[in-house]
């Protein structure tokens, strides 16, 4: 069931993203003028992937601030919160350096390529309930293709499809009367599709 929902969500999202450039044609008449300056983005999305043949769905929330230094280039940074499994030990606070590339020939709906790389710090270091005794973050990066859809002046709707990577480590205790105490360290490499919606202002 989860697999079907995910597949249809992915298909619908892709269709919207792919059709939007057409909508953009209608807006090409409104030629925008380029001015260097800051732009702020807030994204919310899902992190879809699989682990041992089971569909995994996480969530992400992120803020990205970029300074548009050229018509085709913005650079900046971002922070966020990401959860790859809704259990203690698999959530992170990433922070990135961000590069955003635009097609300078486009007006109206703007396709873009966003690349970000940084570090995702573990959110929970300990949790007595799940016996998490240590969690470490690691390299975090994502790349996305998206569209900026102007809604009104200085406000755009953002839609993107991307790829998210996070390296991490979680260590859990296991207590047992008979089998004894154990400590297990998991070295994770999360690789997820990232579907996002957001706003730029």
């Amino acid at each position, binding site marked *: 069931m989860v697999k079907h929902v995910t597949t249809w969500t992915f298909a619908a999202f*892709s269709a919207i*993203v*792919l059709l939007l*450039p057409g909508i953009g044609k209608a807006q090409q008449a409104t030629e925008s003028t380029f001015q260097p300056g800051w732009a702020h983005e807030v994204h919310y999305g899902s992190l*879809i*992937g*699989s*682990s*041992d043949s089971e569909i*995994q769905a996480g969530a992400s929330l992120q803020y990205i601030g970029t300074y548009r230094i050229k018509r085709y280039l913005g650079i900046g940074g971002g922070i966020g919160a990401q959860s*790859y499994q809704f259990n203690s030990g698999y959530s992170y606070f990433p922070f990135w350096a961000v590069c955003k590339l635009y*097609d300078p*020939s*486009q007006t109206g709906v703007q*396709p873009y*390529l966003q690349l970000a790389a940084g570090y995702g710090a573990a959110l929970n270091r300990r949790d007595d309930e799940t016996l998490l005794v240590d969690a470490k973050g690691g390299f975090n990066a994502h790349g996305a*293709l998206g569209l900026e859809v102007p809604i009104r002046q200085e406000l755009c709707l953002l839609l993107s*499809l*991307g*790829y998210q990577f996070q390296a991490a480590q979680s260590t859990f205790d*296991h*207590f*047992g*009367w*008979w*089998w*004894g*105490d*154990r*400590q*297990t*360290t*998991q*070295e*994770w*490499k*999360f*690789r*997820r*599709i990232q579907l996002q919606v957001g706003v730029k202002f």
Partner: protein
Amino acid sequence: MKTIPTFYYLMGLLSLALALPSCIQDTCEATTTFQAYEPVYVKPADFRHATEFEAPRDLENPGKIYVYQDMLLINERGAGIHLIDNSNPEAPQPFGFLNIPGNVDMAVRGNMIYADNYVDLVAIDITNPSSPVFAGRTEEAIPSHSFDAEMGYLVRYEEVPMTEEVDCDSYTGNSFWRDGTLFVDVAAGGVAQDFANESAGQAQDVGVGGSMARFTLAQDHLYVVDEHRLHVFGLSATPEPEKINVVDIGWGIETIFPYGDKLFIGAADGMYIFDNSVPTAPEQLSVFRHATACDPVFVDGNIAYVTLRNGTECETFTNQLDVVDVTNLTDPVLIKSFSMHNPHGLSKLNNALYICENKQGVKIFDATDPATVGNEQIGKMTGFQAYDIITLQGGLAIVIGEDGLYQYDITNPEAPRRLSNLLSL
């Protein structure tokens, strides 16, 4: 318009890439670390010989303590007993070291030390503590896990740290054999056959042990608890104890504390009360159940003080003091529980309760009112790890722990005064 195909091209590539399962597959490599336990066998010929008395040696891994008249006995875990002249607690002087392989506990009655020597009990005459004399041996007094004709007695398991790769979603708790090694935690149900303890008020020719002891003397008999049973030994006929009874109790038995003609036995699941009016045949009266934990017991009057602690061998997260009304021995009633840090051995002298709190040292509580004792801390002894304590009339507290032996003047329990610290002998 010419860029739109580029966008479609990139989007197509991205979609294709994402469609590949390996690209969106989380990977996880897990390693688990645990303690394996390798069996240790000892051949009878290696330990069944007369006990040797050696020159004093330093405390390296001190265990149980025992007081007999002006003498202090400190167990060196698995190695023997330090004999110390403690007639001046401010300057204790070593007599020497009794080399007893496998020893973890002891008791003394009538100038005779009874000590475990792996599965045997040995009797050592200390009429002249400067020159103890081996007096006798009771073979196989304390059951061993097994005996192998070639390798000898299985006396313990040695911890061996192990690391292995496992599946991330696998259940990591398993016990299994591999190359003769048992990969389980047997610490809680361990193999150590240890001993000792005596409550205050015993006859002069009987010593005093701590609350962590597995071995006690009462009514001319020696009582030893292993993990499941209470062993009763007669002491009158010959120097070496004679086993006369074995009483099944349950599981996780840890300590034994005599009080009057009763025996209070601390177990992982509760405190067992035995009527010992017939010393050869202790009879269970009741059991006070508590959460699974390690639980030394000290009894004074109608009140039993039970400390529960966590730890690898205790399999719990409980750290507390239970105060139990034992007026009706067939129906002990909990008065109150108090949170503690990590309580181990305990003792009571007059109206002060002394509790070893591991790295926090010893905490001293006003025990005038059992219902509030855990909230009424009046003093402390700090700066060392505390495992067990003995208090003596006259105002002396003897504390043992990883950092050695500490002695305090507790004439004023609100301001205990350190008399000595012993680690090097």
